[in-house]
């Protein structure tokens, strides 16, 4: 299984290519605010291919593996990204294995490059398609609870708000969960842009006449009685139909279930990840959310982290020391809670709105099987 754990990844070999995939990836992400991580990864890989002088299929695949590994290593949470790289690799494999693909490698390469770009364009269009599907979920008189800064949720709500002009106007309200002022630390500028986006969606909706209330995360349960549905975005949709999303989504899902409100997920199908987590600590990434500390010699010291926590029960302390616990060198550490994600299991999800239709969580696996076989 293609879990994005980077433990098996070989040490970097900078000599093999002078193309800086990571810089390209970051540049792409920065240049286009509408770009999602998997698509940026695909675009970066396409660019890497066009820069390469690979002349054989095997060479191309090796290059691709190398760049993918580099990318994954450089990002603290490669789940979303790996959805893109896996998809591209799969696409490449099927293209080169096609019976029509004859010996002319150059033709295959050109085909790949042009199709790769087409693919990127198509996935961007997916968001509008989702918005047009999801709009019908927002009916007259509903109150929508949402969180985070998901662009696709924003697109959906905008589309619903735009439909509210004229006689058949849809009147709906939005309760937006915004974590009160994030980090003061400068390194987590990513998180503050997310907040900025959340705020941007709020003002966008308010300017269109949609009443929006912003609440802190602690007020979710309090506000649920007047909520008709919860709509959230996702960083990745996993094989079991659960989602990986920003920290706090799981608890919203649990509260919504307890209150009997449906939880809908909006996600493009390129966010489907080949990952099958069984619980919160099974995502193949390390997060610094839970750290047990004691005060020793007057200063705080971390005695236990989430590292190697068994799925349920027990703790890392019970483990035999030293096995599989080495630090992964060169990996950017997670910046605490701001960027952290959690896993919402499929039982809590009522539907996943994608560009190919509204899926039940169990249908995600079927979609993935279709892609991979």
């Amino acid at each position, binding site marked *: 299984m293609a879990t994005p754990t980077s433990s098996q990844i070989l040490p970097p070999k900078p000599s093999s290519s002078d193309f800086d995939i990571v810089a390209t990836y970051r540049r792409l992400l920065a240049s286009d605010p509408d770009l999602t991580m998997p698509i940026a990864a695909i675009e970066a890989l396409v660019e890497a291919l066009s820069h390469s002088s690979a002349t054989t299929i095997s060479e191309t695949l090796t290059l691709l593996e190398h760049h993918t590994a580099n990318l994954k290593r450089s990002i603290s949470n490669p789940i979303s990204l790996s959805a893109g790289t896996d998809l591209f690799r799969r696409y490449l494999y099927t293209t080169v294995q096609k019976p029509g693909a004859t010996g002319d490698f150059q033709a295959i390469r050109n085909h790949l490059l042009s199709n790769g770009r087409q693919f990127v364009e198509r996935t961007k269009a997916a968001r509008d398609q989702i918005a047009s599907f999801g709009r019908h979920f927002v009916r007259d008189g509903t109150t929508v609870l949402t969180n985070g800064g998901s662009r696709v949720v924003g697109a959906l709500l905008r589309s619903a708000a735009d439909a509210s002009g004229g006689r058949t106007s849809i009147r709906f309200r939005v309760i937006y969960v915004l974590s009160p002022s994030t980090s003061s630390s400068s390194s987590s500028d990513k998180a503050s842009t997310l907040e900025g986006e959340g705020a941007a969606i709020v003002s966008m909706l308010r300017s269109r006449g949609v009443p929006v209330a912003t609440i802190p995360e602690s007020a979710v349960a309090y506000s649920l009685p007047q909520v008709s549905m919860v709509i959230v975005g996702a960083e990745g949709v996993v094989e*079991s139909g659960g989602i990986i999303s920003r920290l706090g989504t799981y608890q919203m899902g649990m509260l919504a279930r307890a209150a009997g409100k449906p939880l809908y997920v909006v996600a493009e199908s390129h966010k489907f990840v080949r990952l099958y987590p069984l619980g919160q600590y099974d995502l193949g990434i390390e997060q610094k959310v839970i750290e047990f500390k004691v005060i020793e010699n007057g200063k705080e010291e971390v005695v236990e982290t989430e590292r190697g926590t068994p*799925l349920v029960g027990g703790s890392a302390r019970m483990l035999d020391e030293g096995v599989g616990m080495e630090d992964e060198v060169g990996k950017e550490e997670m910046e605490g809670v701001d960027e952290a994600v959690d896993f919402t299991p499929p039982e809590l999800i009522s539907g996943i709105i994608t560009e190919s239709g509204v899926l039940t969580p169990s249908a995600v696996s079927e979609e993935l099987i279709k892609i991979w*076989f």
Partner: protein
Amino acid sequence: MAGEVAGEASAQVAQQKGSSNKVAKKNDDKGSTATAGQTGMDATVAKVNMAEEKKRKKAEKAAKRAAHKSTGPEPSASVSTSNVRRPSSTGDRGAANAATQGHRQNQPRSAQESQRPKQNVQQRGAGVDRESDAHKQTHFTKTARKSSKEIQPFGDFAPRKRPQVSDASKEVHPAVLALGFQMSHYVVCGSTARSIAMLLSFKAVIDSYTTPVGTSFARHFTAHHLAKQIDFLISCRPLSIPMGNSIRWLKDIVIREDPSKSESDTRRDLNRYIDEFIQERFTAASTIIAQTAADRIRPGAIIVTYGGSSVVKEALLTAHGKGTPFSVFCVDSEPLNEGSNLALALQAAGIKVTIARINSLTRLMKKASLILIGATAMTGNGALYARAGTAAVATIGDVNKVPVLVLCQTIKFTEKPIVHGLEMNENAPGEELVVSQQPPPDSFDAQTGGIIRVDKWAQWKEKEGVKVLNLLYDLTPAEYIKGVICEHATIPPSAVPAMLRLSGGPAQGA
């Protein structure tokens, strides 16, 4: 008994119907088995219907007498002579199956009869932990017990018989004969082992087969020779789903053999195909699954497993080979003691194991981090069909939020949905449960109590009012299963039919 109930208050009409139906059903079992046995023809549904109709009327006239009869001698028709040929059914159960079919066909005929399937479900459900049925259930069983001890929820579920050499037809190949007895006595046990052993014995059958003059290999072999082998195997133990799938595949490739090919070439090719099939669908698949599952085992994990699945064993050994430190709770149960056998193998490899009886599940589940279980089959509705006791392990695991992973090759997938634990189940001879032929050396001393004392029940067949239920399988509903690891991917149980479709169906391969 039914007569007595009829004499009681009219409020119990429903129960009475149930009971008299029960009686009728008993008779049907006998009737249809006899028909199949005597005529040696296929037990046609029409015949069963007629027999059933007649018997039921009789039963209603003299219900009391019939009730008496029903506890009399068990259906005695020899199963191997019966030609009820269904890959998924057994000789013994063939009759029961036919009767059930009759029920379904009769359903719309009258109001009374339309009650029957419902009642049946209730009766059968009595032995299964179905919370939804539970309260309806208690009421029913209470009245039934009050009136008579003889009607039991599993009354229609006759135990499998031990095969006799004399039952076997002369065409049965010695290799198949040996395998049949080995399976019947659990020497060859576990659905993977049984399927592989069956395919290997069929290789021997193919090798020693000569096409009679005037027919072709493809036409004669399957219908007239292989069928007899399969019938004998069924009479020893019902076929498991992967065995059925393998047979379907084998029949398919035999029929597609070029008739112009020389016979020795055909034999050689078929043997090669079988080897490839075993390699691809069982051995290699199991290795891939074991590797995927081994990656799931975290350092320090406590794995719970039940029974003695070969894939789970391979997975645990693979994880151990990778140097992951973990320990295993091998949950064991009577009468097959597969759990302690697995523990022996794991211990020999140096894995820390704890052997626990199934009655200590609730306690040990508090410490567990992952449950790995093998399967006999994954059904079309995502339920897991496996060794009896698995459902208990999975549900208790679910209560304690311990994820349940099923390790299962796609050859064990079936499109067929199974919604009830008794469907396709196998009632093994009761003496296996209560009489231990050779008490295992490491079993508890009888003085310590805890288990039924063997000698007390040695003569259980003579004792009145005793039935022994020795079911070999049970059904775990999909909601208790977190994921299924097959050779292609890890999937949620709901995706079993999708995987089956996309991997080309159970009978494809090689």
